[in-house]
């Protein structure tokens, strides 16, 4: 005999303003099987939950339906409340009468009726709910950190310092990411490499961290606490264990004209190379797409001949290793738009129109100009530089509506650095708004404007063109008399938009996590779960989620690390028991499953396997399908797939769904 309790929440005015909650409660009390029904202002509040708990005890309820907001919001809250009152939490269901009813329909009888109908369907469903027990699974206390930029480094160090193993995967030959390329950092102007490189070294030397540089994630299977990753270790052609990094190979390599990625193409590198002098690990790799030996079938081999340690081996191949991990921190970073994205700024034709990252390299003491600001075309020191903020960002026509967040600050920094290095120079900044909302950020921008005399012009630049060796920057000053302005510049720096990595979509698919329309990876909740993803055990850090500056990336790295350590603080994980199972019955049938096993390929988690049912003598009497509850994630595809309903899924059983559908009862 069902004794269902129905609890209707007003959600303040959110539900009550369009739904007559009192009448819903009254009608609900007349549904067969409902033995208790009330409405209340805030069901999720403490007194609201007490009402549920008291009713469960007082009325000996064996099922609860809370008609309130979305179950995606408060299902755990109410299930917990039920559990505290001694009712199995899985006997509690939520009827969504807020998001799916009161908020989307006007006040009126129809809306009230719909709320009641939604509730009634759930009452019918809950009558068929059964007690479920959570599933326990073991936790592998090793974390994968994907990406060795500052966010990944921070996450890896924090997890490792908490005593857990970390596997760091970096696609480039060295860790360090974008931060290693920067000159000085705002708002303190401390040198980026000076603060980052010690961290990089710490990663390399940490006993708990295994660094896989020049490696990529191939695939990730499994689930929270029990991931299985395949990592591709790209062939380095140099044995890092033997190599002493003496530098003979790269100084003698005949292929010298490859644009240097680390210096954003402003200098050249060789085919065997270390990306930058402070690289970690500081061992060279051979770029096989450029190396003569590989491009021209075995010609050359100079480095191999000259290597004093005989560390070079052209025969090494990509290697794929399999590792187990309990959690993944995704810190794959970002890319920027390049100058060729802007037709109005010359489609990348003008050498002296550069992007912000290139300016960082020009300003960096370890950069191609050793920190002197020289323009790329002829190496002259530019006397006038125009900086353009929001190049691409906040521009719907360019398909990038969002703010890239860091450009206002680094543009101010760039202008300031230029003025510090070349006092007579003129610097102009075109901007839309100045967004300097961090600690000491606005002060920094004010300093740039007031002390360093950088000319800020509020307006957009419509065109850049070359005339008589000058770059003519045409824009508008929208303040005061709103005049068009033209500036003859020697160099233009575009603060180009930050965009998601080109491969971010495929990374997301490998990890089974979501991404937004700009291909940034999606957090589970924009406010309350900013570092988690929708897939348990996978966390986000840094700019792979959205444009971020260094302090933010570091904070999120630490936040992700703390999530990982929280996860690792348990030896076992409790999982929702929403899993599929194959039915069992008495001999001689044993199960209605006929063992066609066509369901095996359907399972995305490879959770279905063959099971042989044996009798007491150990003879196989029947072969059936078996669902491994530890692997099953509860999608239920196999349930709908099974022809004779031998598989069912807890929480969404055939019986429950059938009843819910039939209760539509139009």
């Amino acid at each position, binding site marked *: 005999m069902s004794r269902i309790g129905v609890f209707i929440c007003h959600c303040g005015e959110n539900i009550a303003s369009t739904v007559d909650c009192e009448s819903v409660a009254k009608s609900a009390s007349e549904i067969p099987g409902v033995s208790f029904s009330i409405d209340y202002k805030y069901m999720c509040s403490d007194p609201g939950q007490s009402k549920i708990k008291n009713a469960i005890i007082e009325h000996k309820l064996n099922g609860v339906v809370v008609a309130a907001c979305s179950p995606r919001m408060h299902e755990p809250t109410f299930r917990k409340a039920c559990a505290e009152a001694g009712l199995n939490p899985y006997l509690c269901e939520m009827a969504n009468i807020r998001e799916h009813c009161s908020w989307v329909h006007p006040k009126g009888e129809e809306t009230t009726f719909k709320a009641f109908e939604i509730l009634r369907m759930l009452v019918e469903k809950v009558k068929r709910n059964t007690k479920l027990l959570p599933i326990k699974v073991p936790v592998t206390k090793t974390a994968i950190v994907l990406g060795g930029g500052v966010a990944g480094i921070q996450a890896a160090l924090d997890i490792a310092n908490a005593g857990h193993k970390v596997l760091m995967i970096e696609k480039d030959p060295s860790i360090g990411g974008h931060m290693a390329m920067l000159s000085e950092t705002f708002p303190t102007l401390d040198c980026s490499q000076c603060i980052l490189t010690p961290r990089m070294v710490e990663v390399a030397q940490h006993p708990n961290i295994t660094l896989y540089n020049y490696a990529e994630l191939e695939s990730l299977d499994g689930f929270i606490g029990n991931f299985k990753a395949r990592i591709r270790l790209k062939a380095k052609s140099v044995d890092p264990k033997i190599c002493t990094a003496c530098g003979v190979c790269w100084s003698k390599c005949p292929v010298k004209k490859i644009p240097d990625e680390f210096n954003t193409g402003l200098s050249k590198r060789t085919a065997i190379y270390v990306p930058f002098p402070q690289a970690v690990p500081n061992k060279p790799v051979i770029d096989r797409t450029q190396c003569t030996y590989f491009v021209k079938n075995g010609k050359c081999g100079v480095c191999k001949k000259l290597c004093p340690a005989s560390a070079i081996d052209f025969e090494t191949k990509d290697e794929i290793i399999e590792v187990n991990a309990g959690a993944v921190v995704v810190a794959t970073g970002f890319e920027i738009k390049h100058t060729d994205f802007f*037709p*109005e700024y010359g*489609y990348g034709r003008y050498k002296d129109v550069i992007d912000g990252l290139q300016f960082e390299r020009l300003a960096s003491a370890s950069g191609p100009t050793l920190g002197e600001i020289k323009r790329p075309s002829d190496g002259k020191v530019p006397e006038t530089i125009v900086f353009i903020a929001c190049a691409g960002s906040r521009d719907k*026509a360019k398909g990038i509506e969002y703010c890239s967040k860091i450009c206002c600050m680094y543009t101010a920094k760039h202008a300031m650095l230029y003025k510090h290095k070349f006092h007579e120079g003129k610097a102009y900044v075109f901007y839309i708004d100045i967004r300097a909302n961090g600690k000491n950020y606005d002060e920094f921008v004010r300093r740039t404007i007031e002390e360093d005399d950088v000319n800020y012009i509020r307006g957009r630049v419509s*065109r850049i*063109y*070359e*005339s*008589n060796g000058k770059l*003519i920057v045409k824009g508008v000053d929208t303040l005061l008399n709103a005049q068009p302005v033209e500036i003859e510049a020697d160099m233009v720096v575009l603060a180009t938009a930050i965009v998601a990595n080109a491969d971010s979509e495929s990374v997301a698919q490998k990890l089974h996590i979501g991404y937004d329309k700009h291909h940034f990876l999606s957090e589970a909740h924009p406010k309350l779960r900013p570092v988690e993803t929708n897939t348990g055990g996978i966390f986000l850090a840094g700019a792979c989620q959205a444009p971020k500056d260094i302090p933010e990336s570091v904070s999120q790295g630490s936040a992700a690390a703390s999530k990982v350590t929280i996860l690792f603080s348990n030896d076992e994980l409790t999982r929702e028991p929403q899993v599929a199972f194959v039915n069992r019955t008495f001999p001689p049938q044993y199960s209605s499953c006929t063992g066609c096993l066509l369901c095996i390929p359907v399972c995305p988690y490879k959770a279905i396997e063959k099971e042989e049912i044996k009798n007491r003598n150990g003879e196989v009497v029947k072969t059936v399908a078996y669902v491994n509850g530890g692997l099953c994630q509860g999608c239920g595809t196999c349930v709908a797939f099974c022809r004779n309903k031998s598989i069912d899924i807890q929480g969404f059983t055939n019986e429950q769904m059938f009843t819910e559908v039939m209760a539509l009862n139009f």
Partner: protein
Amino acid sequence: MNIGFYPGCSLTGTSKEYNESLVAVATSCGITLQEIGEWNCCGASSAHALNHELALLLPSRILALAEQQGFTELLIPCAACYSRIATAQHQLLQDAKLLAEVSEILKIKFTATIKLFNPLKFLSEKILPLIEDKIKNKLNLKVSCYYGCLLVRPPQIMKTERFEDPVVMENILAKCGAYPIDWNFKTECCGASLSIARGDISSKLSMRILRDAADKKAEVVAVACPMCHSNLDMRRPDINSLLTAKIDIPVLFITQLIGMALGIPAEKLGLHRHFVKNDKMVSNVYSQNKVECPA
């Protein structure tokens, strides 16, 4: 091949030569341009500044007439007319209710789905494939292609690729043996809308365009808009006095250049109708391939 043709006022007046050369080029490619009957003013430059309803109704009537007269394609050579008519079509197609209202006022039922051609689209889609083997005179001229504003903007209505840096004219003229140059003022404003009220501003803006073309050593400026043409051609004395130098680069309609390449006689292209002298250049083009210069 019959295609509806809306000349608009400019092509019957100030840019008669545009009309002449366009018809000559189309005819030589076997395309008949059939003027739509009873056409009216498109309302450009004044209506949309004063009365939105009128600004919509005038071009709508042209669309409706063309459809009523059985055309499925409509060529509008004047950039301003095209802009007004395409904008009207865009509005009508976005809003079925509006279309019904307009049909009601015009007393003509129409769907506004006729395919519109601006001169560039017409030349690149219809003419270009036909002229490849018909080029008689290689132009051998450094040409700066000037688009102005209305042919490429607003991009969401004009649906132009590379609206900041279009290359349609360059592609066509390169086929005709010209050498399109890389310059900076392709899509800058010539000041046409101010040419009556503030001629001084128009002159200044046009001056900058021509100055850059001259700096980049252009021998001829190609245009596809009557307003651009009149500003760059007719205002030359003003421009030269502003520059305190003499720029004598002729400004020709792209159709005239194509016509020359096709060997169509100069007077049929209206080449004599310009203020800036072009006879030397024209005769050079015609004479290099030993075709007698008819001019």
